[in-house]
């Protein structure tokens, strides 16, 4: 007779963290080896430089043999520049003169930089452009806990952390400013003024195009909202967003949506936590990658020397009493608590038989929802 199984199979439920006090580590990795300017144990500020590197410049190629009309194996004596030599844009790198000098052909460098290679097999010359400097700041305030010499710095930060569902644009910093008095109140463009320049501005409910346009005009550093229309996002990006892999966009600000697309309010817990830190300087990052093991956009509020017990990492486990957000129609965007977790598969309206839960929504309704359609809100 077989023994009963011992493990609870994969009941992992996605989580968006809204934590009042947690400990995070953020790795700052150079794209190529360079220099790290801090030591393990150093305290760093979010906007402090911690590492720098010089990226190799752009490579340009030109076929010297073809330009001179000679076989590749015969270019050697015609070269004016050799591997490792610096060159300027338009400077001659090879020259061919016929007997008595009646015919003459010159190959000019297609870029400024250094001659990286000249092949006598193909006749191809590669010119490497000037190095491109890259500087990394600490992103969050905290303590340096790990260094990979010349490559990476890890900063540990005690903070309040809010994860969004989708972001646009990369890292930014600014003072937190709330535009509305509640998570459900719509915002108008008039609420934004020059005073919001460089700040991270929070809207509660759906973000309209007018507010977005005004925020860019004013020069806010970041915009955090519950939701927006996907059509407005396309307009912002200039093209439809095909897959949720973001962070490199250059749209003049960093945007973070906490709930999704459509007419949705920001979750009350999220709004309340942001309100608590109004006026504080925060770090945010719009980079998002929605795949197994997601990268979420985030708002990080460093708590400086705060102590006390940090929130445990998300459990991903649904239990009766768990706080959840429904993330699919017909109850999309509504919040509630799990009231029952039936073991048996249940048939839903589509006729699919699936694992469900019962939840008491904040509006008092008791509903049945597929377990796949909820997100845990863990603090």
């Amino acid at each position: 007779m077989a023994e009963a199984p011992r493990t609870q199979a994969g009941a992992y439920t996605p989580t968006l963290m809204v934590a009042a006090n947690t400990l995070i580590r953020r790795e700052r990795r150079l794209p190529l080896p360079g220099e790290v300017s801090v030591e393990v144990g150093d305290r760093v500020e979010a906007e402090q430089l911690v590492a720098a590197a010089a990226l190799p410049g752009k490579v340009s190629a030109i076929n010297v043999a073809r330009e001179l009309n000679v076989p590749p194996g015969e270019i050697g004596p015609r070269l004016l520049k050799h591997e490792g030599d610096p060159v300027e844009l338009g400077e001659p790198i090879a020259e061919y003169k016929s007997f008595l000098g009646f015919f003459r052909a010159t190959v000019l460098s297609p870029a400024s930089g250094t001659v990286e290679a000249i092949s006598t097999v193909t006749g191809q010359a590669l010119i490497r452009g000037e190095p491109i400097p890259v500087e990394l700041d600490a992103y969050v305030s905290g303590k340096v806990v790990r260094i990979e010499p010349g490559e990476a710095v890890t900063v540990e930060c005690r903070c309040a952390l809010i994860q969004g569902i989708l972001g646009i644009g990369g890292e930014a910093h600014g003072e937190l400013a709330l535009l509305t008095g509640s998570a459900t109140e719509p915002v108008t463009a008039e609420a934004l003024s020059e005073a919001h320049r460089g700040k991270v501005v929070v809207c509660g409910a759906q973000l309209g195009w007018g507010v977005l346009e005004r925020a860019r005009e004013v020069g806010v550093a970041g915009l955090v909202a519950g939701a927006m229309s996907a059509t407005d996002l396309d307009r912002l990006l200039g093209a439809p967003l095909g897959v949720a892999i973001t962070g490199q966009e250059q749209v003049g600000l960093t945007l973070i949506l906490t709930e999704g697309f459509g007419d949705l309010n920001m979750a009350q817990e999220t709004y309340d936590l942001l309100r608590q830190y109004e006026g504080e300087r925060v770090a945010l990052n719009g980079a998002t990658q929605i795949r197994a093991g997601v990268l979420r956009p985030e708002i990080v509020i460093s708590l400086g020397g705060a102590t006390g017990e940090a929130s445990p990492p998300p459990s991903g486990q649904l239990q009766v009493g768990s706080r959840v957000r429904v993330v699919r129609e017909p109850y999309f965007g509504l919040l509630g608590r799990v009231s029952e977790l039936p073991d048996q598969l249940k048939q839903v309206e589509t006729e699919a038989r699936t694992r469900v839960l019962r939840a008491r929504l904040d509006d008092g309704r008791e509903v049945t929802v597929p377990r796949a359609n909820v997100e845990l809100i863990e603090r």
Partner: protein
Amino acid sequence: MNPEDITVILATDCGSTTTKAILIELQEGEYRLRLRGEAPTTVEAPYDDVLVGVRNAIAEVEQLSGRQLLDEQGELIRPARDGRGTDIYLSTSSPGGGLQVMVMGLVRRMTAESAERAALGAGAIVMDVLALDDGREAYERIQRMRQLRPDMVLISGGVDGGEVERVVEMVELVAAAKPRVRLGTQFCLPVIFAGNVQARPLVQQALEGVADLHIVDNLRPTMDREHLQPARDGIQEEFLVHVMQHAPGYDRLLEWVDAEIMPTPAAVGDIMRQIAEREGINVLGVDIGGATTDVFSVFDGRFTRTVSANLGMSYSISNVLAEAGMENILRWVATEEDPTRLSDRIRNKMLRPTTIPQSLEGLRLEQAVAREALRLALEQHKSLATGLRGVRRERTISLDQRQMGETCLVDMRRLDLLVGSGGVLSHAPRRNQAAGMMVDAFQPEGVTRLAVDSIFMMPQLGALAQVHPRAAEQVFFRDCLIRLGTCVAPVGKPRPGRLALELEMKGETYGVKGGEMALVPLPPGEKREVTVRPGPGLNVGAGPGKCLTATVEGGVTGVILDGRGRPLQLPPAEQRAEVLAQWEAALQAYPATGETADLPGVTNG
């Protein structure tokens, strides 16, 4: 272990989202699927270990079957004894979105295209195809190589004894770019060279110290010959040796398996080939996933696989919307809802990719998007499933036209079997919905059989076929392949209200009018000789207006009479709701209000 002694088989497929486990047992002399379990894949943070997801999926199988498969330390119990454990364990995998390959060749439509076919056939996602005639400057190619982080690079170019210099020129660009690998930053990028044999020493010289070079036979040794297998084998070997070893947790998974881990699409491709070979038929298969859609075709024994890397039903669903356009998705939706709101709903699925439709309206919308994803994936497949380009043919005026037509290997009129797999097809609450999606998207012509992968287990069976072909075949035909039935559709433009075709079967006559659909029940396992009489000017395979005698196969759906013509005639917006309702009703695709019909259903989760 001797295959004859194997009584219990456990197999997993580690997809980019979900790890699926199946348990097969020998029951009364036959291998049968016992059940299936699944859990989220754990290749990335916070777990960074594929084995966590594998154990969770196996644990679900344990929970559902009552059979203990893992011991107290979480190790597999082998061999099967006293109702515990398994005799063998196999796995397929597409970690982190699958095997990602960058392809290079000299001429885009010749050697580079052959290389692309080789990479796709090996189960790879082709990140980009670089060729000397791709319209890019050298620096742009270098930039692109640096920007992409492929698992490996496949270089072709030059027929044997042909061009050397230009091949080396391409290779020098790779050396200059020094592309970084995606997984495991400590090792050199694997490069497979499958080009002109005479270029080998120079290629070796150019890549010394920059890449881990592997040389295989030229994939295009002459202009009129394509020899893809060595390159495919080279890719799969590198996949195992380098890529898998560096994916988190795969070192342990490699210790667990009793046969090589296959890339998921390669395993599915093998199964498709086997069906075509066994039955001597032309097969078109599709596997529509969350991120990508793979299309496989075997026509006259020639196998082609393509992957549409950004057409899928969750991670890539917004890209389907972007590529198809809302107006094309709306062709399949009978709703008055504002397109902006529909767009928001589709995009929200991208943000929450693991959610499932709860309402019928949500299901209809998702299946509408699936139709467009499938249609676009087939279009992309047709563009690559071609004869060899660059081959000189004798041309005469009379033959020229036919030769042009012959370049595409996929001919829907000659298609015998259409097979669907992947969540949206395998998990459709009614099988008739899967049939409807496939017929609408692929528009089979004449008489075509339809089937669907019951619970999406073709990958595991492809892997099993390597070590135990009999078990794989038995489970495939008994438990995996669900025969939906047969679609009969005339080519041409049927006139609305007039007879589009008549079908005579067992002395009964069934008809369908132009623009309409009808369903004739014929249970699974039954085959019938039928006479199909098309309307005037319409062609079901015997010529315009001519009768065809054919065999139709039954299935859980039955025989679909499709009077909508080919190419498919879709209704204008003002008639859409009414016409779509007729088609849905004819196929009994969705429950009527208040109905909970006892139709073939499947289980989600």
